[in-house]
């Protein structure tokens, strides 16, 4: 008995293309392979809990943790924190993208400007953004905006660097092809260099949103915040509610992963030629 449909027959009949069949058969076995890791982690967690390798105080069982996560979500207790963190991250990211893309394009399209600021960008990219907390607190006060500003700054550097890199590495032949057709510099820029830089820009945007989330979570923990997942994680640790702490960590992971997935999907749709 066959579990999988006979793609070869469909293929002969011209219903599906070869790429589709390859994708579908690979899809099933890939899904199975992909699940091995997560299931193994849960198994180890459960074993560690059940055999008391780690004290129950430090490691609750996976089931009670999931239960706790579910209850927090269902009761709406976690939703507010989740949304605050999400909003802050998106605000920081939006600032970084809006301010970073034009600057990146400017830096990338002018060798002289790029070389003169390359060191600064590299230096600040290597400086931990969290080291800037006190400075930003001084400038922006202890309100919400200080946190968003630090995260935006860190994400901005990532955007600038990647966009500039994308513009600089635009394929020369494509630029020449447009120029030989009589395209003006502006046209070459708008019709060729902009699109050429998109794949790298998207890589930058994806990295930027991750950086923004990291900084926001840390900021919520340590620079006075009344809500947010970072706050929730540190609060539950303080009162030793470890189920809640793990649940909140998982929630922040879900946010990071979800945002990343979302950007990958947009990227695949918008920059369909990337890597081809």
């Amino acid at each position, binding site marked *: 008995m066959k579990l999988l449909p006979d793609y070869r027959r469909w293929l002969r009949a011209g219903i599906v293309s070869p790429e589709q069949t390859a994708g579908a058969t690979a899809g099933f076995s890939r899904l199975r392979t992909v699940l091995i890791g997560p299931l193994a982690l849960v198994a180890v967690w459960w074993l560690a809990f059940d055999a008391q390798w780690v004290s129950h105080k430090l490691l609750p069982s996976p089931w009670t943790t999931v239960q706790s996560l579910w209850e927090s979500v269902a009761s709406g207790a976690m939703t507010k924190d989740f949304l605050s963190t999400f909003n802050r991250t998106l605000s920081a990211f939006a600032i970084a993208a809006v301010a970073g893309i034009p600057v990146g394009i400017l830096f990338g399209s002018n060798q002289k400007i790029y070389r003169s600021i390359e060191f600064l960008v590299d230096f600040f990219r290597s400086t931990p953004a969290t080291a800037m907390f006190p400075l930003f607190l001084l400038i922006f006060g202890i309100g919400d905006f200080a946190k968003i500003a630090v995260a935006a700054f860190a994400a901005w550097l990532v955007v600038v660097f990647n966009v500039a890199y994308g513009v600089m590495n635009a*394929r*020369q*032949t*494509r630029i*020449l*092809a*447009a*120029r*030989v*057709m*009589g*395209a003006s510099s502006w*046209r070459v820029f708008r*019709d*060729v260099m902009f*699109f050429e830089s*998109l794949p790298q820009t998207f890589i930058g945007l994806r990295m930027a949103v991750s950086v923004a989330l990291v900084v926001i979570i840390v900021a919520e923990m340590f620079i006075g915040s009344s809500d947010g997942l970072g706050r929730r994680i540190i609060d539950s640790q303080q009162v030793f509610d470890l189920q809640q702490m793990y649940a909140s960590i998982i929630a922040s992971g879900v946010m990071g992963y979800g945002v990343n997935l979302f950007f990958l999907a947009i990227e695949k749709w918008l920059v*369909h*030629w990337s890597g*081809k």
Partner: protein
Amino acid sequence: MSAQTEPRLRPVPAEQAVHGRQTYITVRGLSKQFAGSPLYADFNLDIPQGKFTSIFGPNGCGKSTLINMIAGLTPVDAGDILFDGKTLKETTIGYVFQNYRDALLPWKRALDNIKYPLEIAGKSKSERTRRVEELIASFDIRFDLSRYPYELSGGQQQLVSIMRALAPHPEVLFLDEPFSALDYEMTLFIRDKLQEIFRATGVTMLLVSHDLEEAVYLADRVLLLTKRPTQVAETVHFHAPRPRDADTLSTEDFIRTKARCLEIFQREVRR
């Protein structure tokens, strides 16, 4: 008989050359340094109108650099290049790159790639559509042009490149080793398409090739270059009637012309 050769070009004043009926592209006093040593020094060249000219020469003599300078892709250090007396800016040209993968715009469908030079030239939507339909008919295209370039085979992509280059009715078509990234079957196919288009339109064509057989097969004139600093060693004419086909390759005329070219080439390589 048809494998005549011309002596090396003596510099002719640009005005005089322009008024000569046959001459189309005039290159005068061209100089180009490359990594500190002269690649071209006081180089002169006349390309006739409506002819197919192949350029062949030793490695590193700057065959591609030459057509790139004529096409305005590589700046010259000194010298004048005129198209029937006009500057490059006043002239519509087409250029087919060796690497079609890098030359087409992958974010545009094949159809829009072909339309792109017309868009730059400010042609209306209906004009663009009409021109593309004309090209599809004359190329006898049977694949789907609404696909993206990366969804097409290499040969199809290069065909799209050639159609794009021809779309704005160029006065000259530059071809920089257009077949070297294609398999043999596709090379033969596109070669003959190109010959067909050449016969139908009479557009001046300038081909850089590293394959002597191909260079002679397609050409009215084969321009043989020297080692650097590069000069024209000799111009060999080939008058076989068109359309040429596989039989042309075994004619005495072809074999003699090719042998003559090879002889000059080897003399220049050893020099």
